[in-house]
């Protein structure tokens, strides 16, 4: 092992620091945003169920927060219309 390799193997703290900064930025967004996703889910469901009977378990609300753009993905499985 040359001298450079020796130092590289030892200096692991900067790697730890960078991994933590990236991870925690991500985790804080998820934990902070989970309530918003839950609120949206409730309110959207309330509006739709006024008009259509839907199964609560067949609804998925996903909130993705990106750097410049965030997406809200709503997936609702509608029941088959009967008799029409």
């Amino acid at each position: 092992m040359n001298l450079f390799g020796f130092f590289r193997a030892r200096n692991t703290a900067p790697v730890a620091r960078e991994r933590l900064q990236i991870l925690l930025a991500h985790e804080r967004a998820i934990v902070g945003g989970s309530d918003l996703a839950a609120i949206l889910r409730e309110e959207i469901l309330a509006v739709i169920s006024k008009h259509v009977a839907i199964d609560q378990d067949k609804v998925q609300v996903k909130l993705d927060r990106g750097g410049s753009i965030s997406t809200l993905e709503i997936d609702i499985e509608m029941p088959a219309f009967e008799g029409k």
Partner: protein
Amino acid sequence: MSKVLVVTSGKGGVGKTTSTASLGAALAAAGQKVVVVDFDVGLRNLDLVMGAERRVVYDLINVVNGDAKLAQALIRDKRNDNLSLLAASQTRDKDALNLEGVTKVIEQLREKFDWVLCDSPAGIEKGALLAMYHADLAVVVTNPEVSSVRDSDRIIGMLDSKTAKAERGEKMEKVLLLTRYDQARAARGEMLKVEDVLEILSIPLLGIVPESQEVLRASNLGAPVVMSSPNCAPSRAYADAVRRLQGETVPMNIPVDRTGLFAKFLNWRVS
């Protein structure tokens, strides 16, 4: 005005119980009336670290359930009259605790003591949430290591959302106690530095407790390290932390043990 303080971390094994015992003992040594309360129901250890394991008759659950009066369950430390312990139950599980009961006990403790130190269990479940719920101040114990820092970040989030203070819309005061710190390894780039952890968690620093063999020695003996070895580096760190808790401005330094040949000889002779 009494103060309720929670010692918490998320991760286990970082030094919550050791720190609760030593902060409590150091506050008591400063003349404050202190009670240390173990919230780790089912896995109690504060009694053992304090050397009171054979004196536990009634515990926190007994008081919560009304099976014992608070005065019967409080164990007064034999070395310092100002210090008392309220043990957790070893035979019950964490569901034996409830918010109503804990609220009553904390109210009673506030009347009797200047400081109520709640030793939180690891994790983010009921026991940890109840330990932090009534706190006026949180001491977040963290090791300079990735998993500990990550879990501390999570606990800081919970302190800001799941406590009585947070529910009232008040700001929860949080301070960082960095434990098992090895300055030489941090300087060599092998360990996260104090500044790294502070930048990531962004809460003020209460103290830096260096890694030391004295801590294990103290727990073997059943004494808080500030009592068993008051002049060693971790004890001085805890004593400084306690002065800061009481509002003093103490310059932040990392205490070191003398490691000269003569000091080693002395240590060898007295131990």
